[in-house]
């Protein structure tokens, strides 16, 4: 097992190098190169900041030297200063925003796990039933619906018309004055819609995947054997079929990291949630190149992490993988 993990870890090194290369190339693809700074109409400030940035990026040096410096800086997560008016270091801005994005994504993964898997299992076990058919329709609709549209509709319905849930931000104005329980409840209420929307696409995918896996597993010989042995249906389902069907699920959860991150751009912007996705959107709109590159790279790291965890989880569950 340890050998498997260490082998996997070693494999990530070329990936990291590749990520740095792609990021580096992208930065230089931008018009005006990594600079392109100075959105003020202040000639003097612009000239100074341009000079500073030129030195920082070493733009007068040959390309491979620049790349070397970029690699070194990337390793320390030093992405430079943001181009936005506050000019703070990119990594600092990202660090403030990551917790909330991760919280929402982890919660939505939990949601997916808790809802999609039972739905998928039940649909498989009761294949062809009304439940199965309805859930299939729901799943397909879920695949096809644009999440930003759904977000708007839900905001109007739950936020304005019914007034049940707050429609923006992550805490109320008087958050500080609430007790601990109150604070948790307040955060919770603010997170309901974002988490629901973040998980929505994943819900559909996961339940479908679970269903098809279950179906495949159910048809297998060992299930037939278990049935033939006269074991109650429930044991058959839970003990034998589900355990094997669940294996890929862990992988899927790990692999869904990039999609969740990407989706966060949309719903964080719509719900005014101060997370990494909203920061990224603002960076894109204001062509804040250091910020864009920073978030892109960190997003890649997180995805890599998710993949790694997924593979490890898969190996843990399935001994066949571990051997080789």
């Amino acid at each position, binding site marked *: 097992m340890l050998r498997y993990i260490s082998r996997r870890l070693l494999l990530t090194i*070329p*990936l990291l190098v*590749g*990520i740095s290369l*792609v990021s580096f190339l*992208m930065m230089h*693809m*931008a*018009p005006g190169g990594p600079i392109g700074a100075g959105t003020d109409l202040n000639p003097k400030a612009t000239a100074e900041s341009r000079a500073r940035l030129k030195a920082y990026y070493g733009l007068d040096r040959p390309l491979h030297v620049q790349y070397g410096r970029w690699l070194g800086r990337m390793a320390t997560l030093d992405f430079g200063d943001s181009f936005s008016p506050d000019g703070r270091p990119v990594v600092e801005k990202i660090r403030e925003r990551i917790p909330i994005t991760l919280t929402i994504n982890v919660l939505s993964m939990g949601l997916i796990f808790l809802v999609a898997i039972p739905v998928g299992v039940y649909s498989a076990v009761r294949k062809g039933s009304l439940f199965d058919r309805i859930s299939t329709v729901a799943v*397909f*609709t879920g*695949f*096809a*619906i*644009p*999440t*930003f*549209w759904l977000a*708007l*509709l839900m905001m*109007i319905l739950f936020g*304005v018309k019914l007034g049940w849930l707050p429609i923006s931000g992550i805490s109320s104005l008087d958050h500080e004055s609430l007790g601990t329980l109150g604070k948790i409840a307040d955060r919770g209420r603010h997170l309901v819609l974002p988490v629901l929307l973040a998980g929505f696409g994943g819900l559909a995918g996961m339940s479908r995947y679970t269903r*098809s896996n279950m*179906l*495949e597993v159910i*048809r297998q010989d060992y299930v037939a054997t278990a049935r033939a042995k006269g074991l109650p249906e429930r044991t058959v389902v839970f003990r034998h079929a589900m355990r094997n069907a669940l294996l890929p699920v862990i992988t899927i959860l790990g692999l869904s*990291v*990039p*999609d969740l*991150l*990407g*989706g966060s*751009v*949309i719903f964080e*912007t719509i719900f005014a949630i101060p997370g990494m996705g909203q920061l*990224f*959107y603002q*960076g*894109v*709109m204001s*062509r804040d*190149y250091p910020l*864009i*590159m920073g*978030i*892109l790279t960190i*997003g*890649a790291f997180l*995805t*890599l992490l998710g*993949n790694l965890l997924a593979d490890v989880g898969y190996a843990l569950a399935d001994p066949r993988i571990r051997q080789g």
Partner: protein
Amino acid sequence: MSGSPGIGRDFARRLLRNRLAAAGGAVILFFFLVSALPGLFASHDPNRIDIVNILRPPSAAHPLGTDDLGRDVLARMVHGARVSLKVGFVAVGIATVLGLLVGLLSGFYGGWADAVLMRFVDMMLCFPTFFLILSVIAFLEPSIWNIMAVIGLTGWMGVARLVRAETLSLKERDFVAAARAQGAGDARIIFRHVLPNTLAPILVAATLGVAGAILTESALSFLGIGVQPPTPSWGNILTTGKDNIEYAWWLSVFPGLAILVTVLGYNLLGEGIRDAADPRLKGR
């Protein structure tokens, strides 16, 4: 040989019998018609501004209402269909061609080329796709061509893996060995024997890919970095819808529905093709 007429006919028969897939196909055909013959469906000029009729609800004159500059929503949606389809097809075209090339080369030649290409695929897959698309568009600028290229260039990896898997398994099959024994060169084997057998999964991936591309384009346009106004796109009509959501429901509902139905159609067709191509997997 690959793809004898009997298999093709069975495939078609199975596909048509699948009602959901047929429905999907009908939807797709419908939107094809709409974008090919806009005049048939919309009588107004999509860019004709009419200040007097700003934000009118659906009526006889304007079946889907007017937008915030008095332009006919139906006409704009009809032209938006064109945009969506164009983006979907070109983007998926790019992705498919690229994915095919990489997958075929990787699977067929194996060894060193395979290792390098697959590492490259893994690396590309490390970047969250939407982030990558947004970044590239930030570096370039939002134009319909850039969007098509970017969606295509960030979506080929899945196809590549698929094609590689198929190629790997096909490589070992008898008919390939037979062809080789007959003295067929690599290129001939790849293009005449391997490629046709990968068509089914590619078709599935492509169909589902169009659906995804349409969703992505509409999300980009909604965020303001896709198709720029005044060119209509379902996504950017929804942006206006969001800004006027409380009193102009038609601007939000119809484009959203159109996206939903179109994407659903492609998804159903894609699933149908998958089922029809491999009846062993009928259980799915």
